[in-house]
């Protein structure tokens, strides 16, 4: 190794070594994330899949098939033993292909409750035992996890009773598809990312450039500066969300079922929440590597846990009780309620109040500790 190269390497390592905060965010933070996620996914039952099953009640039409059922011993046996089969699944610790250990629990529901649970993301698949002894699986095939779940359940059932007929009903009408749940979640995620990276990063960069310091020695009011940053980012977030929504509307026929004004107020509340958070995160550091770590440590857990891509209800209950109060979870869930179920302004009042209060408190705390120089 030539001397120049060696010195260049040494000098760069020294930069890390002599800045412990950078060392932490470069080496410590990934280890920390890996440890936390590793613990979550390795030593605990990481995901608890909930399957709704419906036992179709006898009706006039169904009774017409009764003779057929009586003649088919396998189906009769299946129908009779369905509860036992479900009980068997409930307590089974299973290993899904290529995944960690997960638990599947079956919950008996009526059709209406099952659909409601499906729409809210609490369950990903509905299994319906027909009066003729056959099975119907209802889920969105675009949801890979639901598809895996269907394959696994169906295989297990056929291992026990090879003659059971099964049929997949695609839940892909508007409002019940995976994409319908995904788009409001992505809009919420977009607000978080755009705000935290946009505002947080800009503030750190301005501090490094000493531009903040230059402005603060003029009579400019600090609040005007902060508002300007927030308004600019809000404008960009609106454009981002608008493009995403138009794309989803044009290609997937995703529609806003709720009131636009309610959606707009929720959007603003989300922006306020994450603006406050970004100002607090960027309040002290003048190092982009530290800023990068700080923003990541906040965004990554929410990205993984807040149910943007998959329902957080599959996490253990103790985790769900924490996850549901994360600002991204509140924003994404409420946005889905407005998008898919036409939730009224009053019904989402708590979420809006929660997000605005969260943002204002962090904003005040951030400004209190803010380093302008």
């Amino acid at each position, binding site marked *: 190794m030539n001397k120049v190269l060696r010195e260049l390497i040494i000098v760069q390592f020294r930069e890390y070594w002599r800045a412990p905060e950078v060392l932490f965010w470069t080496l410590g933070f990934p280890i920390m994330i890996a440890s936390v996620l590793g613990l979550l996914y390795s030593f605990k039952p990481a995901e608890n899949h909930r399957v709704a099953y419906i036992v179709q009640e006898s009706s006039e039409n169904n009774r017409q098939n009764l003779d057929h059922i009586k003649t088919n011993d396998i189906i009769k046996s299946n129908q009779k033993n369905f509860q036992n089969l479900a009980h068997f699944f409930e307590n089974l610790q299973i290993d899904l292909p290529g995944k960690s250990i997960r638990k599947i629990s079956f919950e008996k529901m009526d059709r209406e409750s099952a659909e409601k649970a499906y729409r809210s993301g609490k369950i990903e698949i509905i299994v319906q035992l027909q009066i003729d002894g056959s099975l119907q699986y209802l889920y969105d095939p675009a949801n890979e996890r639901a598809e895996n779940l269907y394959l696994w359940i169906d295989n297990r059932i056929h291992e026990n009773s090879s003659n059971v007929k099964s049929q997949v009903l695609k839940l892909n009408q508007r409002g019940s598809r995976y994409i319908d749940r995904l788009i409001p979640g992505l809009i919420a995620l977009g607000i978080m990312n755009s705000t935290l990276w946009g505002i947080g990063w800009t503030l750190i960069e301005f501090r490094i*450039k*000493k*531009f903040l*310091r*230059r*402005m*603060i*020695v*003029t*009579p*400019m009011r600090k609040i005007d500066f902060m508002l300007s940053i927030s308004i600019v980012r809000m404008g960009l977030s609106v454009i981002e969300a608008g493009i995403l929504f138009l794309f989803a509307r044009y290609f997937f026929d995703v529609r806003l079922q709720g009131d636009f004004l309610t959606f707009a107020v929720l959007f603003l509340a989300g922006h306020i929440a994450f603006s406050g958070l970004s100002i607090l995160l960027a309040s002290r550091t003048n190092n982009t590597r530290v800023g990068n770590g700080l923003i990541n440590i906040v965004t990554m857990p929410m990205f993984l846990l807040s149910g943007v891509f998959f329902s957080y209800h599959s996490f253990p209950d103790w985790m769900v009780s924490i996850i549901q109060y994360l600002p991204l979870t509140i924003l994404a869930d409420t946005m889905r309620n407005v998008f898919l179920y036409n939730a009224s302004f009053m019904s989402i009042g708590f979420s809006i109040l929660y997000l605005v209060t969260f943002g204002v408190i962090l904003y005040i705390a951030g400004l209190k500790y803010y380093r302008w*120089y």
Partner: protein
Amino acid sequence: MKSSKGKPIIEIKNVVKRYKDQLAVDQVSFTINQGEYVALLGPNGAGKTTIVEMIEGIIKPDSGEILIEGLTWKGDDRYLKSILGVSFQETRFMDKSTVSETLKLFCAFYNIGSGRVDEVLELINLSEKKNSYVENLSGGQRQKLAIGIALLNNPKILLLDEPTTGLDPQARREIWMILKNLKNQGRSMILTTHYMEEAEFLCEKILIMHTGRILAQGRLEELLAAHSEGGIIEIRLENETDALKLYDLISVTDSTCQLAEKTIYLKSKTPAVFLKNILGITEEQNVIISDLQVRTMTLDDLFILMAGQHLHE
């Protein structure tokens, strides 16, 4: 702005500032009168920037008092910001803003009409660059822009922290001329620098600083007159061992003697007599002189005699 020299506009009284275990400013006191151009002259780490930042209100002194027009930063900050014009050692503006857009932004901060932009562009000789992005400006042009921003509000006090550090001689001289042309408008200026020529060219009053203290202050001619009787003798030796040997011998009898690397500086009222003696000593001790100068004192000499190092170190 009318000229009314003489009235104190900035009063620094027994100011102390410490950073962790380092004393940056140690019991500093001085007064600047309206219309005065004052240089804080000293090497890096002398405490110049700390003093200027305390005047700007960016940092607070640990003890002592700073009065600007008799006011303090407690409660009068908005007014004080409106009468100060500030240029930092280094500021980067928005890269994708043009020069005139940048000036216009700062006009808004001072609630000044954007008509001031063209006036300032002329003052700083940057009119032809008004539509250029900041990222495309040279170092000198960026520094001119920084000074332009400092001048936007027609400030009573200009605070310029090393405005020409890192610039080439031509750009430095251009900035000197801009600042020189601003004189006689009743405006006061504090300029920190480690360029002796800059202090001499621009400022009538000079405060020489070293390790947080003021070593000497006064008008340039006063400072030099107080120390320049006779002449400065500069003896450069072949090597540091010889320099140290000779320094030890001279310093016993001459307290003004200072050693900087291989060169000995001293002040003598009778240089001719001293030279005769010193040549005898060098022959006796077998040390070799590589260069010898006798001249009148400069600010740099004065600083070396006081601090034992060059201004640029």
